[in-house]
């Protein structure tokens, strides 16, 4: 088989396409639309619906154009020039509609239904069928999110093929054959796949419909905008639909560079947070008993307290690039401090690497890689679309190795090396020396000749991530640093970091500061500031006057729950800038209402470093404003000037700053940070006490995060109450049983949670989800995402307490 381009004729028009192209794709390029149901550009050909018949010269029978690949000199006639093909298509549509209930007025797909549209464009108009139609029970829930109406199904198998080929979560299948054939799920099973929503979007009829969009709107009711998912750093392109000002739906937009045609269920179904009743859309001032005040008043009040004071800024990972840049510039040029941070995990030298370069690994590189090493990342739970790309790579033959303390959902396509958290570094260094379980992986990466990919999750210790970077360099592979939250990478790039200015320039590097001087002035603070943990410690020790909390709730979002509470109790002025107050209500002295992601224009940076434009679907609600505007207003109130008044001016400046050559560190010259790093380069503490395990945590896909507010169906489908996972051997040793409550005690706190046994967990460790209902794991942690913990059956501890 050659890879020469192929020339063929379709409807008398000649076209040259790459070999192996399907006729239906070649026709698309000529602008010829062949009706189809089962064909989908990101799924394998199936030929299930028989709608795309064309006539091929020299072949005795009609062929389905979605399964036949082009051949040199082929002459194809579609319905536009072949009466035979047209008749066959009309007959097939009549056939597909025989059992279709035609309940379009009730169906959610009505108005945007491929069957409806194509029946109108290519169908017979009248049916000759007068007999009774096939009847099934109207929608049966496959899960709390997905409803199945089998009467409407045309058996195209798009949904089942998606589950087989793309997500690998094979919950639904075509049962029976012939007239009784139908999509179904095993009795008692739930469609518990975090990608289930994609089957709804690709269903060409209304057979699979969404519970959250059930009877909510028609296409003509909706105002839509091109958004980017705010939930994780995958950067899925979304269409955001609004009906009368309320967000009612997220759909995945096709973008082969990023998310193909998919998005995860969180991105699809957690869309109600901007309309949460808890949202506050006016500025508030504590002096008035936390009553509404004007923006001018609150900004003036805050500015008065910032001038000449010790100020620190904490933010999360979900603002836009522009917001982060404004924050970074405000802190350095107006307030004059480097005490600002956005990180949950402090990542060391790899952060300089990630902050200083735009993009080193793209999704396409992952897909093409013959060998991939994934370190410290549970892709399905943390960056689900990267998980799908890894699966796609595996389908193309990539050898994937995952180094993680807990088996991930890649287990059917990847080899897992279970390692205790913090031990990644030693494993990787050993592999570079040609020893240990990963030695063969280094060889494979080397053999890939530059096409291999190493992905390090942000949860690796800084030493682990640096070791992964070193391993990638040794093997000549590409390296990607996978941050978790939607715009963590953008925050790094914009310099929301105690040691880094925008573009990865170090604050204590005179050259870096000089490069920014034309835009930022030459009076930038030059000593590295305090990181997240140090800011909280300073606050708790009464060494701060003003603490800004911008889009973050330190009580639940950070691994310093207890410390954060002490910090909030000991800072005189707490300024909260967010969508709502939540747990911070008792602490906030001033509240600045921020616009929600769907209300802001700007850019978001994916984990790859790709900057994607976001368009607002509606204006900010109430008095809320985009974060950068609030920060610019604060600068003005403090007598400073950020130098931009419009988003365009800000964008132009940001692009200049991020441009290479403006003093950004050289790709090769990444030196480890010197100085205290809470997780340090050290190995994880070994549990000296035999009753102690190494407790680690990370957020699961669907948790109690603020952006999942009111996503009740999603939580019903995919969320579990808090649990602690233990290896069966450790459980046996500690007397823990599946389902029974265990008391988890760490230096920071204690909690009672039910036990789950997981034999695919690194022995000697225990896992708790970061923020599932029933446990805010931050309260058990002390600055790091792992900590030695004592576990014992709750009955034992209760008995002890009763006797004492």
């Amino acid at each position, binding site marked *: 088989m050659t890879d020469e381009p192929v020339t063929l004729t379709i409807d008398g028009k000649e076209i040259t396409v790459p070999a192996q192209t399907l006729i239906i794709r070649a026709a698309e390029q000529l602008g010829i639309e062949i009706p189809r149901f089962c064909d989908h550009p990101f799924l394998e050909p199936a030929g299930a619906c028989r709608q795309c018949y064309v006539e091929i010269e020299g072949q005795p029978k009609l062929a389905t154009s979605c399964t036949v690949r082009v051949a040199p000199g082929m002459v194809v006639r579609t319905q536009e020039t072949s009466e035979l093909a047209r008749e066959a298509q009309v007959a097939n549509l009549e056939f597909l509609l025989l059992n279709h209930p035609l*309940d379009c*007025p*009730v169906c959610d797909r*009505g*108005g945007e239904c491929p069957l409806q549209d194509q029946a109108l464009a290519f169908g017979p108009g009248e049916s000759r069928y007068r007999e009774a139609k096939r009847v099934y029970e109207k929608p049966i829930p496959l899960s709390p999110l997905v409803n199945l109406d089998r009467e409407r199904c045309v058996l195209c198998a798009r949904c089942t093929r998606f589950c087989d080929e793309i997500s690998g979560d094979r919950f639904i299948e075509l049962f029976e054959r012939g007239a009784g054939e139908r999509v179904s799920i095993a009795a008692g099973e739930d469609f518990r796949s975090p990608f289930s929503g994609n089957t709804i979007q690709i269903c060409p009829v209304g057979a699979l419909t969404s519970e959250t969009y*059930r*009877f*909510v709107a*028609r296409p*003509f009711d909706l105002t839509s905008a091109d958004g980017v998912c705010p939930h994780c750093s995958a950067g899925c392109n979304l269409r955001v639909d609004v009906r009368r000002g309320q967000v009612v739906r997220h759909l995945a937009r096709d973008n082969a560079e990023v998310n193909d045609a998919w998005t995860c269920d969180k991105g699809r179904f957690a869309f109600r947070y901007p309309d949460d009743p808890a949202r506050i859309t006016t500025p508030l001032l504590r002096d008035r008993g936390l009553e509404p005040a004007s923006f001018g008043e609150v900004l003036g009040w805050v500015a008065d307290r910032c001038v000449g004071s010790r100020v620190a800024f904490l933010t999360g990972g979900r603002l836009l690039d522009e917001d982060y840049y404004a924050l970074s510039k405000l802190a350095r040029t107006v307030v004059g401090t480097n005490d600002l941070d956005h990180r949950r995990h402090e990542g060391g030298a790899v952060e300089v690497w990630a902050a200083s370069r735009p993009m080193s690994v793209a999704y396409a590189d992952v897909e093409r890689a013959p060998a991939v090493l994934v370190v410290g990342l549970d892709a399905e739970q943390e960056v689900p679309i990267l998980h799908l790309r890894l699966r796609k790579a595996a389908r193309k033959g990539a050898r994937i190795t995952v180094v993680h303390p807990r088996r991930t959902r890649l287990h059917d396509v990847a080899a897992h090396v279970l390692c205790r958290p913090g031990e990644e570094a030693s494993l990787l260094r050993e592999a570079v020396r040609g020893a240990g379980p990963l030695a063969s992986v280094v060889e494979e990466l080397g053999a890939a000749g530059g096409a291999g990919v190493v992905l390090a999750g942000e949860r690796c210790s800084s030493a682990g991530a640096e070791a992964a970077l070193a391993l990638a360099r040794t093997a000549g592979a590409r390296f990607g640093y996978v941050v978790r939250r939607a715009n963590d990478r953008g925050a790094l790039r914009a310099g929301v970091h105690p040691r880094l200015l925008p573009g990865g320039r170090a604050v204590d590097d005179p050259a870096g500061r000089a490069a920014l001087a034309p835009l930022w002035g030459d009076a930038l603070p030059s000593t590295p500031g305090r990181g997240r943990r140090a800011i909280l410690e300073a606050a708790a020790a009464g060494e701060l006057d003003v603490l800004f909390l911008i889009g973050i709730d330190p009580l639940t979002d950070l691994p310093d729950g207890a410390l954060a509470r002490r910090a909030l109790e000991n800072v005189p002025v707490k300024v909260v800038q967010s969508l709502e107050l939540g747990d911070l209500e008792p602490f906030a002295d001033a509240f600045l209402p921020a616009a929600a992601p769907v209300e802001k224009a700007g850019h978001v940076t994916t984990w790859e470093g790709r900057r994607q434009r976001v368009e607002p679907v509606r204006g900010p609600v109430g008095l809320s404003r985009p974060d950068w505007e609030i920060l610019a207003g604060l600068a003005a109130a403090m007598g400073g000037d950020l130098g931009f008044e419009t988003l365009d001016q800000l964008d132009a400046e940001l692009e200049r700053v991020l441009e290479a050559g403006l003093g950004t560190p050289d790709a090769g010259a990444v030196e480890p940070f010197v100085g205290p790093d809470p997780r340090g380069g050290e190995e994880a503490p070994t549990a000296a006490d035999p009753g102690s395990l190494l407790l680690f945590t990370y957020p699961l896909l669907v948790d109690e995060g603020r952006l999942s507010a009111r996503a009740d169906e999603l939580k019903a489908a995919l969320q579990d109450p808090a649990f602690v996972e233990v290896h069966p051997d450790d459980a046996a040793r500690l007397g823990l049983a599946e389902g029974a409550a265990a008391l988890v005690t760490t230096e920071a706190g204690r909690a009672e949670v039910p036990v789950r046994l997981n034999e695919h967990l690194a022995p000697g460790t225990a896992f708790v989800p970061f923020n599932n209902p029933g446990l805010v794991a931050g309260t058990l942690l002390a600055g790091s995402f792992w900590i030695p913990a004592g576990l014992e059956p709750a009955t034992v501890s209760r008995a002890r307490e009763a006797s004492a």
Partner: protein
Amino acid sequence: MSTAGRPTPGFWEAASAIARGMATVFKQTFRPDTTERWPAEIVPTPERSHIGRHRLNRHEDGLEKCIGCELCAYACPADAIWVEGADNDPENPVSPGERYAKDYQINYLRCIMCGLCVEACPTRALTLTSYYELSFTSREEAIWTKEQLLEPPPPLGTDPVDREGR
């Protein structure tokens, strides 16, 4: 129509044109009057007329015919109709089948009485009545709710707002 290029009419042509026009005026002046003396006197509309406000109909068993499909809203050229669908409670359905209209509003400041909504309705839930006495004292009042539309129209001439004019 342009008159450029035509010769200027003479006196007699002009006088006859005026006379012809005035003849029409006089003829109309003495024809019997067809103006109805509404609201003092209410003339019943023809039996099959549908010149007035909408009505949402019910099935004989009392269930609403409207299934909240929004086709009327889609057909409406004036964007006067607002429909919100919802899931029927199988124990206590509002309409037959899965779907019913949770909310249904017609804004009579926008409605142009074209009847396209009635043509679009797949269940004959929406029809026009001959109740034409639509007068409002506020914008809010001009938006009719589902409860109002489900009511049969009262006899003409009984609307309190209209009666004020008598």
